[in-house]
């Protein structure tokens, strides 16, 4: 074509703006439809990400780079992890930053003259960092207390509240295995609702005492579970592998043991969140589609209303392509501005609410870009039919001769 392309497009763009400015109210309403569609897509993706981050936070709150091994107690000849197994694991599993075997049992105590069952855990001092425990009052167990079989206990926040109505304890004692234990601290789990995922041994009414003390006083022969904290996320599979082979070498079969990491839960969460997100996006996309149909509808009305305008332009020498592009641009501008507004609303509102409530709201840059591109694409797609209708008008009819 002999026409200078960019100048020509900018001219048609000006004609498109002229056209839209002749019908501001209607254009704004159409853009609103597009904005809502785009905003819902962006917001829905954010909501999906927020949910996923929340669940991942819960899982990772159980302990970072965590691997745990335990006997299931099932099968014909159930086997459990013995103390010798723990020693072997301690010696032979590489890439472990910290290891924490756990003994557990139940104890009936008296709370305000009512019997109450609590869990008693026997752990080494590493248990606190490995399981992300937070000491809210006093201190955790020391290595010396573990080595010396001291009769000290750290109790869960729930138990402290139940017993004393506060987590700020003075000199208090608790009766476990028929003996008096001094309460030296109060803890809570790093992520308190971690229990929602799987029953956590540290959730609820719990008293934690030194591993050796528990072992000596209870006569227990097996550990409940052994936690490993791998040196980093990359080492997690190697730790699982090594722990499995150590246990396998010491038992007839691995079938009554579980050696797991949180990775599988993370993968599961990722999969569920992807599926949920896809469903939500599909629903939000419907509103985008409705917005697009709104554009088509309004452009059809516009084309009909501006029949004479189109006829005049054609008579004065506009090519069919010029008219087509002008009306495509009008639809494109509507959806572009609607898309921008929707992106701002869809990304801005969650960020603002997050700011108000101090939550970190994830806004996916990709989802913003995709929603934006899709909304413009939808506008252009639904603009094609009206624009073609405009461009293919019969000049004589359009001029009002018919």
């Amino acid at each position, binding site marked *: 074509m*002999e*026409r*200078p392309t960019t*100048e*020509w497009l900018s*001219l048609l763009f000006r004609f498109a703006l*002229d056209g839209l*400015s*002749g019908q501001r109210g209607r254009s704004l309403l159409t853009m609103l439809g597009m904005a809502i569609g785009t905003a819902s897509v962006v917001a829905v993706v954010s909501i999906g990400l927020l949910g996923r981050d929340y669940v991942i936070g819960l899982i990772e709150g159980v302990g970072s780079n965590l691997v745990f091994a335990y006997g299931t107690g099932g099968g014909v000849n159930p086997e459990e992890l013995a103390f010798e197994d723990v020693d072997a694991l301690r010696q032979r599993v590489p890439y472990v930053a910290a290891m924490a075997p756990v003994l557990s049992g139940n104890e009936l105590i008296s709370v305000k003259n009512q019997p109450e069952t609590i869990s008693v855990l026997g752990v080494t001092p590493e248990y606190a960092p490995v399981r992300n425990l937070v000491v809210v009052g006093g201190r955790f167990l020391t290595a010396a207390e573990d080595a010396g079989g001291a009769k000290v206990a750290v109790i869960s926040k729930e138990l402290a509240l139940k017993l004393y109505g506060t987590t700020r304890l003075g000199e208090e004692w608790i009766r476990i295995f028929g003996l008096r234990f001094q309460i030296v601290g109060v803890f809570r789990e790093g992520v308190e609702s971690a229990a929602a995922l799987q029953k956590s041994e540290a959730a609820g009414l719990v008293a934690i005492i030194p591993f050796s003390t528990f072992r000596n006083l209870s006569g227990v022969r097996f550990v409940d579970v052994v936690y490993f904290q791998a040196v980093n996320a990359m080492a997690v599979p190697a730790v699982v592998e090594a722990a499995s082979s150590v246990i396998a070498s010491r038992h007839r079969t691995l079938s009554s043991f579980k050696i797991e990491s949180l990775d599988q839960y993370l993968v599961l969460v990722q999969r569920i969140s992807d599926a949920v997100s896809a469903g939500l996006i599909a629903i939000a996309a419907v509103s985008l589609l409705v917005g697009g149909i709104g554009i088509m509808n309004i452009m059809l009305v516009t084309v009909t209303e501006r029949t*004479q*305008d189109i*006829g*005049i*332009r*054609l*008579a*004065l*020498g*506009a*090519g*069919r*392509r*010029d008219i087509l592009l002008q009306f495509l641009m009008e639809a494109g501008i509507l959806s572009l501005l609607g898309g921008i507004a929707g992106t701002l609303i869809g990304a801005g509102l969650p960020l603002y609410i997050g700011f108000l409530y101090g939550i970190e709201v994830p806004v996916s840059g990709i989802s913003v870009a995709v929603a934006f591109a899709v909304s413009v694409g939808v506008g252009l797609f639904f603009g094609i039919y009206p624009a073609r209708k405009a461009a293919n008008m019969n*000049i*004589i009819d359009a*001029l*009002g*001769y018919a």
Partner: protein
Amino acid sequence: MSRRQTTAIRRIPDERVDTTAQPLVEMHHIAKTYQRDGAAVTALRGLDLMIRQGEFTAIMGRSGSGKSTLLHILGLLDEEYEGTYQLDGQLVSGLSADELSRLRNRKIGFVFQSFHLLPQLTILENAALPALYAGKRPRDCRAAARMHLERMGLAERLDHRPMELSIGQRQRAAIARALVNEPRIVLADEPTGALDSRTAMEILDILRDLNRSGTTVILVTHDHEVGEAAERIIHISDGTADDGVA
């Protein structure tokens, strides 16, 4: 083709017509039939027409005479007809809609009965429109539009929208728009149809002045008084040779 089937064209001889000037419009055996309510209506039957450069021609005829059809073909608005049409030495019958669009833009300036100015644009923007569609630089388009509007006495009204002008001013703005691309022909379709008689005279004077300064003007009208403004009158009547001439 018998005489009865031929659209009657009656030329009024005029000594002012320069028979040596270049033919601008040459039509041979133009025929057009269209469907209306399922019936075939013949609008033109083998029409021959020649208009030379610099002429001021009126095409006259009653409603239904085929005059409008001729106007559409002349103005390159209609490409579906039989026969040959040469405009400014170029064969235009059989060209595509887009090619006609470009020729129309450059060679023909339209003046319509109801002005057909775009209401949302100022008259400067309106007058610049054909130049913009011709792909000229916007600044040149505005300059040309301003020049023609000033020539039409609208220098003070450039930024007014059509509705803010009198109907005479609107038609003058439309004439400025018709002239902005320096067309070979100004094709005026009942240009005085919407005007009172005083304004009508004013518009006809403008068309005459245009013609005197060298522009070929074709005036399509049913009004004898208006037709008299032209130096040559072509009468069209449907199929009847002895249709009366005023």
